[in-house]
């Protein structure tokens, strides 16, 4: 298994009040597999994905285990965690405009992991960056490298973010609502690019989304999350028919059926 989460629990205490965010979450992602994690907002999807890179407040109480490519993340040494973060797994944020530093050029953000984390020379990093920009379908990559985030469209930026995530040649991608901020057409394009890259590189992808149609169409397996728990695991194809858990059914019944309305209701503005 590329990613193995076993009985992960996470509790955050603020002002003396404890909130259990995750309750015995177990899931796995194999190499070359696209796994969906669905649920309404606040159900703990994002927290789960961030926990894989040990991105939670220091004050959080965490139990269980997370293994990425054989490394136990929660008990990992500094060096091990550094390796996992820099070249085993990469997180793709929901809003590319927020995920890129607005005062830095695209090229700088794109090659930051290579130059400042992995110690690659600027020239090599720039060459690798250009290659990746081409791979995510960006034309005139040299020019884009010199631009600032505010000069590019959302779809373009999300491609940059995906390219940046791939600079460390990770085996696992954690895509946290990676296309929700985009309009429907752009979303489809970006998803297609992501699919191509995943197949070419044999990546494991944990796709977090609140969009059930997307999950059903895109994922090999889907986990349904509700109030910090995994309530059901289904094959992507079975999502709309095979749901057993009452919550999953309610969630499904809240989604407009295909054919009646546009395929997705995205949060894009």
């Amino acid at each position, binding site marked *: 298994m590329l990613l193995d989460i076993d009985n992960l629990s996470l509790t955050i205490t603020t002002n003396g009040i404890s909130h259990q965010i995750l309750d015995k979450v177990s899931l796995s992602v194999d190499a070359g597999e696209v796994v969906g994690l669905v649920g309404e907002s606040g159900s703990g999807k994002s927290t789960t994905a961030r926990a894989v890179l040990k991105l939670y407040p220091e004050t959080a109480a965490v139990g269980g285990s997370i293994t990425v490519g054989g490394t136990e993340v929660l008990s990992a040494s500094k060096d091990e965690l550094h390796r996992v*973060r820099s070249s085993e797994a990469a*997180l793709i*944020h*929901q809003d590319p405009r927020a995920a*890129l530093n607005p005062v*830095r050029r695209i090229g700088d953000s794109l090659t*930051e992991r290579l130059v*400042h*984390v992995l110690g690659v020379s600027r020239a090599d990093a720039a060459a690798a960056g250009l290659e990746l920009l081409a791979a995510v379908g960006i034309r005139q990559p040299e020019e884009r490298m010199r631009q*600032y985030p505010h000069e590019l469209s959302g779809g373009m930026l999300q491609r940059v973010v995906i390219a940046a995530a791939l600079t460390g040649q990770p085996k696992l991608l954690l895509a946290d609502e990676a296309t929700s901020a985009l309009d429907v057409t752009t979303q489809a394009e970006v998803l297609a690019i992501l699919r191509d890259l995943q197949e070419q590189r044999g990546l494991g992808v944990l796709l977090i989304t609140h969009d059930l149609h997307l999950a059903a169409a895109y994922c090999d397996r889907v986990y349904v999350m509700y109030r910090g728990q995994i309530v059901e695991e289904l094959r992507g194809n079975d999502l709309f028919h095979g749901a057993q858990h009452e919550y999953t059914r309610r969630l499904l019944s809240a989604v407009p059926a295909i054919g009646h309305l546009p395929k997705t209701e995205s949060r894009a503005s």
Partner: protein
Amino acid sequence: MIRAATRIAGMILTLVVSSFVIFAAMYAAPGDPVTFLIGNPENMTPERVAEVKAQYNLDQPLIVQYGLWASQAFMGNFGTSFQYHQPVAELMATRLPATLALVAMASVLFIVAGVGLGILSALRQGKRTDSTITAATTLAASVPSFVIGLLLVSIFSVQLGWFPVSGAGEGFLDRLHHLALPAVALAVGAVAIVSRVTRQSMVEQLSMDHVEAARSFGLAPAKLIRRHVLRNAWGPILTMVALVVASMLAGTVVVESVFGISGVGKLLVDAINTHDFPVVQAVLLYMVITYMVVTTLVDLVHPLLDPRIKAKDKKS
């Protein structure tokens, strides 16, 4: 470009109005301006009256007087001090170095301490260090600078004998030695303001997605802070620093009095005490101009730090 032009035009307009206020203030004084300008009735000699009338063109209408005064001032001629019988510009020139050195030293102190404490506070957000820094700096800002100055003198000059009690010193090292305590007294209040702004700005940036993104791929904490937090937090910090420096250039009056430094601030206090109105006008004008120029400059430079605002400016 258009923005810069309107900003500068606005500054000039405000300058004209405030300089008029400074000039015309003498007409608000009880009695006629000649009496007011001479001050002490014992000095009311015909020569003195003639001198005053010549200096201020008191026979002309007010607006003409102002115009003549302002155009002279524009060329650096602020008239003659009634007290020292010396051109005011010369007086200012001899006093300015001490004040500028004092402000420069205080600025270095409050920038280093304020930004440093603000960064520390932001990184320890919500912890004991954070609340201690906030409480301590706020408390320090509630103590008037003259009290801080006198306490410093008492402890470090009188009891310990480490620093001179007063004066501005000659030569670089001696000046540093003399101005150390005054600079601290001047800087203390500013530390609270700057550390607060730094903390606020940093905390805002720390919660940004791009910071988490950079952390997610393993960027070392020091680099993370430098490249993603400080670089983006600069705007408000720099603006506040410049505003504080600007008001310091006009706010050395108290500290100069406490430490007996012959700077511009002390000159102003003495001029008020001796009814030396040409000096009062010149010093106030100098302070208002410095303050306005620095604040306008900040407004103009600020956008250059942020490519987003620069772009917007270009479009408009």
